[in-house]
C-alpha cells in the first residue's frame, strides 16, 4: 500500500514537471540564463568579434563617470514619474465614468482600449506625421486657435513631453480596464451606507473608492513603473533618442552600446544597473504599500 502510494506520488510529480516543462524550458533558455549571462558579461570587455576578456569592475567605473548614462537615467526617470501618475489618474477617471450605466459605454471602452492592442512601432509611425511642425495635425489645430504651433519633436524641451503624451494615449486603455475590474469588486452596500450617512460624491470617492481599489492601484503602479523604465520602442521610432539626447532612455543607450557600438560588456553593466534600479524601486513600493494598501 505504502509502495503504491509513493509510486503514485512520483508519477504525479513527474506529470507536473512534464506539463511545466515547456514554460520552464522557455523561461530558463530565454530569461534566466540570458540574465545570468548578462550579469557575468558585465565584468568583461567583449566586442563580439574578439573573445571576451575579464576587466573586473572597469565597466561599472566607466558607467558612473559617463555623462550620457546619467543623462539617459534622468530622461528615463522623468518619463516614468510623469507618465505613470498621469496614466493612472486619467485611467481612474475614465474607469469611474465608464463603470456607470450609460449609452455607448461598451463602444467607448473599446475605442479607448484599441491603442493598447496596436504595436508601439505602428503607434509611433502614426503619430510622427501628426507632430510634423509645418503640416502636422496638432499644429494645424493650434494654428486654428491663432498659435504658431510647437516644435513637438524637434525641441529639447518638447520632445519628451510629446513622447509621454503618446505613451499615455497608448496605455491608458489597459490601465482603465484594470481599474474597471477593481471598481466592480467594490460592494455597493458601502456606497448605500455612505449615502444614508449623507456623504457627497467627493467623500464617496476619497473615503470609499480610493481605499478599496488600493490593491488595484498598487498593482497598476508597480507594473507600470517596471514597464515605463524599459521604454524603448516609442523613443526609438519617434525621436531616435534625440534631439540632442533629450529622449535618450536607458534601454536605448543599452541598445546603442550593444548593437551599434558592439560593446557587449558595457551594455551588460548598464543592464545590471537598470535591473538594480527597478528592483530597488519595487522594494520601496512594496514596503510603502503596507501604509496605504488595504488588504
Amino acid at each position: 500500500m505504502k509502495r503504491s502510494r509513493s509510486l503514485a506520488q512520483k508519477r504525479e510529480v513527474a506529470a507536473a514537471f512534464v506539463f511545466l516543462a515547456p514554460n520552464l524550458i522557455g523561461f530558463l533558455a530565454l530569461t534566466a540564463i540570458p540574465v545570468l549571462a548578462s550579469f557575468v558579461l558585465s565584468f568583461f570587455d567583449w566586442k563580439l568579434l574578439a573573445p571576451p576578456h575579464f576587466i573586473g569592475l572597469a565597466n561599472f567605473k566607466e558607467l558612473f563617470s559617463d555623462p550620457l548614462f546619467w543623462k539617459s537615467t534622468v530622461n528615463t526617470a522623468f518619463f516614468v514619474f510623469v507618465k505613470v501618475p498621469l496614466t493612472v489618474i486619467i485611467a481612474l477617471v475614465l474607469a469611474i465614468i465608464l463603470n456607470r450605466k450609460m449609452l455607448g459605454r461598451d463602444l467607448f471602452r473599446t475605442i479607448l482600449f484599441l491603442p493598447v492592442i496596436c504595436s508601439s512601432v505602428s503607434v509611433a509611425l502614426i503619430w510622427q506625421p501628426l507632430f510634423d511642425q509645418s503640416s502636422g495635425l496638432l499644429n494645424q489645430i493650434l494654428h486654428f486657435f491663432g498659435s504658431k504651433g510647437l516644435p513637438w519633436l524637434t525641441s529639447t524641451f518638447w520632445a519628451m513631453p510629446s513622447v509621454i503624451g503618446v505613451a499615455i494615449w497608448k496605455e491608458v486603455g489597459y490601465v482603465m480596464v484594470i481599474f474597471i475590474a477593481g471598481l466592480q469588486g467594490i460592494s455597493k452596500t458601502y456606497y448605500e451606507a455612505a449615502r444614508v450617512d449623507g456623504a457627497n460624491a467627493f467623500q464617496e470617492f476619497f473615503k470609499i473608492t480610493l481605499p478599496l481599489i488600493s490593491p488595484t492601484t498598487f498593482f497598476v503602479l508597480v507594473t507600470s513603473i517596471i514597464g515605463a523604465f524599459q521604454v524603448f520602442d516609442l523613443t526609438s521610432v519617434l525621436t531616435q533618442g534625440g534631439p540632442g539626447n533629450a529622449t535618450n532612455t536607458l534601454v536605448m543607450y543599452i541598445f546603442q552600446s550593444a548593437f551599434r557600438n558592439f560593446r557587449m560588456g558595457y551594455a551588460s553593466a548598464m543592464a545590471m544597473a537598470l535591473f538594480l534600479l527597478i528592483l530597488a524601486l519595487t522594494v520601496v513600493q512594496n514596503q510603502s504599500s503596507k501604509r496605504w494598501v488595504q488588504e
Partner: protein
Amino acid sequence: MKRSFIAIMAFLFAAAMVAAQGTVTIKYAFWGNPDAIGVEKDIIDQFEKENPSIKVEPIVSAYADYHTKLLTMIAGGSAPDVMRVDSYYFSDFMQVKALRDLGDLLMRDKVDLSSYYQQGVEDCTYKGKIYGLPWSTAPLYMAINLKVLEKAGLKAPRLDWTWDDFAAICKAVTKGDGADKVYGFAFDLTNISGILPFVWANGGDLFNADKTKFTLDQPVATAAIQRLVDLYKKGYMPPETVSATADINTRLFVNDKVAMRMASGMEVLSMQKVDGLRFEVYPMPRGVSRNATVYKSNVVGIASGSKNIAAAWTFLKFLRGPEGKGETLYMQAKRMPPTMDNPKYWALYVDASKYPKLIETNTKAISKTYGRKLPLRAGWLEVEEAVRPSLQLIFTGDQSASDAMKAIAGRVQAILDRTTDKGNQ
C-alpha cells in the same frame, strides 16, 4: 513488385548522395529591401546555372539589423562564406581579421583592379592589403529639383558651383508658409556624412590626417557648421531637419517642396521611379576646397574562416569581378551606379529618357575632381553616435557650433583612443 520498388528507391537515393557529394553550398550574406533582393536572386540563379556544382544560400536582412546579425554569426562560428560589409564597419571587422586577404587570388587570376573606381579599391584595403571587391562605389550627390528652381526663375548651377551659389539658391527658392512652404535645402542628421561635405569645403575635417585626433571642434569646421545652421535659422531648411530621415526628405523632394537634397545611389533610384520628377545630380558646392563630395564604397569579401575558399572565390568573381556578370545584372536592374568606369556598364545603367540625365558625366567628374573618401576607421559608428546629438543641439539652438563640438571633443577622443588599431586605420 515490392523488391523492384525497393531497388529503384535505393538506386535513386544512392544517385542523390553521389550528386550531393559533388555539390558545394556556400552562404552569401547581404542586406537589401524587396527591390534589391530581387536582383541578388537573379545573380545567384545565373551563377548556379553557369556553375551547377556550387549552390549559393542567400542570407538576407534589412540593413538596420544586418551587421549585428553578421557579427553574431561570425562570433558563433557560422560566418557566411561571402559577405557584404558596409565600409562604416570595415575597419572594425578587419581589426579582428573577419575577411580573408585576397592578394594571392587576385594575382593568380589576374584580376584587373584598375577597372574599378579608385575610391572603391581604397575602401576595400586595410593596412595595404585588399580584403574584398568593391560594391556600390558611388557619391553622395546633391540632387537638384529643376522644377522648383525654374519656378524661382533660376537655372541649374554649374558643376563648379560654390557655397555662395548654394546659399543664393536657398534664399531665392524659399517661399510660402506652413504646409505650402517651399524650402531651399533638406538634409538629415542621421549620419555625419551629411555635415562633412560642408566642413570639407571650408577646409576642415572630422579627424586629423592619421585619424587619431578629433578636429571637428576646430574653427574652420565649426564655422562651416554654423553657417549651415544659420541657413536653417533663416527658414531656408525644413523645421524637421533636426529629426528628418532620408525618407522624409525624399517625400519633400518628390512633392516639389524642396529645391535641393543630398541623395545616395539608392535614393536616386527611388526618385527615378516618380513620374514627372525632373532632377539632376551634382557634386556638393565647393569652398576653399573642391573635394567636398562624399565618395563611398562597400566591400564584398570572403570570411577568413571559410571552408569553401575556391567556391566562394568563384562566386565573388562572378558577383563583383571585372569580368563577372554580377555588375551587368546590377546595371540592368539600375540597382546602383557602376562600380567600374566602363562605358558598357554606364550604357546599361543610364536611361537617357529619364532624369537625372547628367548622372554619368557628373559621377565621373566627382570621381576625378570633386570626390573625397570619408575618414573611416575603427569606432566610426561610435563616433557618429557621440557627435550626432551635439549636431542636433546646434540646430535646435541650444548650443553654438563651437560650444557643441568643444563639449563633445573629450568623449570622441576617448573613443578614438580606445578603438585605435596600432597600425594604420
